[in-house]
């Protein structure tokens, strides 16, 4: 049963990931991304990381990709994207880095750390129960990792405030600055 769930989720994940890269339409890419994210959530559930699985779906599939789609819908999809490459050596560098990443994953998968623990390999069903459940993660987050947690919150607030400042900088007197109401009247095409 574990093997079946794993291979089914892995197949959806790989299919989705390939779809993200290969789809010609941006919206199709985003949809494939949702499929891949949900497959990752299934794998998290299998590893007993229930909170991670829920957060994966809530944050990534439920909010981030929705915002991607929102932007695509507002700005429209360009089918005639320029295929001219502006950065030289981009393609060969990409191939080299991709091969290096695959080699690294395969090497790490069979490796063990100096402590004798397997580096990335583990049981298909994950560690003992109670490891990734909500209570355990919450306790760690609010005791051991309190400072990183609070600093992340500050970072997010800064990002929001920055976004608001950038979006509202245009004032009526500032001449050529883009008007807040302008995209609505022109950009809908």
């Amino acid at each position, binding site marked *: *049963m*574990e093997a079946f*769930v794993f291979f089914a989720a892995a197949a959806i994940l790989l299919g989705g990931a390939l779809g993200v890269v290969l789809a010609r*339409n941006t*919206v*199709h890419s985003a*949809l494939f991304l*949702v499929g891949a994210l949900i497959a990752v959530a299934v794998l998290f*559930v*299998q590893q007993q990381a*229930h*909170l991670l*699985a*829920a*957060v994966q*779906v*809530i944050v990534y*599939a*439920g*909010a981030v990709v*929705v*915002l991607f*789609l*929102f932007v695509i*819908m*507002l700005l429209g999809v360009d089918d005639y994207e320029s295929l001219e490459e502006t950065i030289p050596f981009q393609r060969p560098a990409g191939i080299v880095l991709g091969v290096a990443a695959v080699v690294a994953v395969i090497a790490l998968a069979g490796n063990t750390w100096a402590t004798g623990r397997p580096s990335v390999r583990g049981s298909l*069903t994950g560690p003992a*129960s109670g490891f990734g*459940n*909500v209570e355990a993660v919450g306790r760690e987050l609010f005791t051991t990792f309190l400072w990183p947690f609070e600093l992340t919150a500050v970072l997010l607030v800064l990002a929001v405030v920055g976004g608001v400042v950038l979006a509202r900088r245009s004032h*009526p007197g500032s001449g050529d600055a883009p008007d*807040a*109401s302008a995209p609505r009247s022109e950009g809908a095409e």
Partner: protein
Amino acid sequence: MTPGPLLAVADPLFSDGVDLTVVLIVVGKTVAVFAMLLVAVMFYVWFMRKVIADMQNRIGPHRAGPFGVLQTLADAIKLFFKEQSSPDTADPWVYRLAPYLAILPAFLAFAIVPIGGEVTIAGHRTFLQLAELPMGILFLIAMSGLGLYGVMLAGWSSGSKYPLLGAVRASAQMLSYEAALGLAIIGLLLQSGTLSTRGIVDLQAWTGNWGSLGDWPVAQWLIWPALVPFLIFVVAAIAETNHPPFDLVEAEQELVGGFHTEYTGIRFAIFFLAEFMNLITMSAIVVTLFLGGPAGPGIGALDAGGWFNAWIMPVFWFLLKLLVLLYGTVWIRATLPRLRYDQLMSLGWKFLIEGALLWAMIAAVIRVGGDQGWSTWIVVPGAVAGAALLYGLLWASMPRRGELVEEIR
């Protein structure tokens, strides 16, 4: 036969192995819940039309079947045999996929709703509930997040203006109210102390003691300690399901049909089904979280157990509570006019989200105070006064209506 361990509790993938009986039980439960939801939608649409007709001094549907009960079925059959057209500008794949993306999360979210208590089927102990997940109520938030895709992609893939506007409205509205929904649940979880829907229902179960008033069935419900989250949750849930007065997604006076303008035949019917299924699921979640779920008095001696008290009474109480809530939604639909878009946004962002956050703060202070043994007479007014002060500061710093308009112009 000694009952085995509980099915599908804290182990949704059955890593301990499955046999045919378990597979059959799970499949049977899934089919039963799906059929129940379909019948519930059919019944609800008839119920809604009949009640609104009553409120408006009309008769309502009365031709198909006794009291017009079969009217929805007749409509569904008609839609099945209608031509399915699609616009030339539509994106064919996404256009066909969108109805299913709309209906799937509505059905899946119902999986965590406890319909009844614990029963024994063929020697296996199981809950009358599709799945008891360790992530519990987080699953609802995840599914209501995914529910957006159906509406959004339907509007975009139709390749026409009105559906696109409906879809853009939908994504903004549902994203905003999802925040309020989630934050209201935080306030509730501080009271319940558990994420699992089964655990939340067990908390509200009747202790079987008529002696003191605090132990009576209704007094155990979480709606009393969590009244503020309840109100916020109900408003946010109505907005999340695009039910009137928040149905700006398909406002017919402004957007023809909103996101499903270009859909015909059975695909349109599926959107219709998804919308009402969402409403029923959300009402069932409200029953679970705040109104005690299937908890209620049994028949005869309370510890008698038995077939009737295990199978029938909990389901009866659950359906009764659900019916009352659904009547409330019909009442709202018949009574309240649709909000303007800016009213919708200001309600969500200026009241519901702040209210839920402040309530979470108050609940946390009261809980810590209880754990530390502080005096309730100081902690509760202190927390409420602090929250009121914070909201007052926030309110004073919000731009007034005139200011805002001037600045954007």
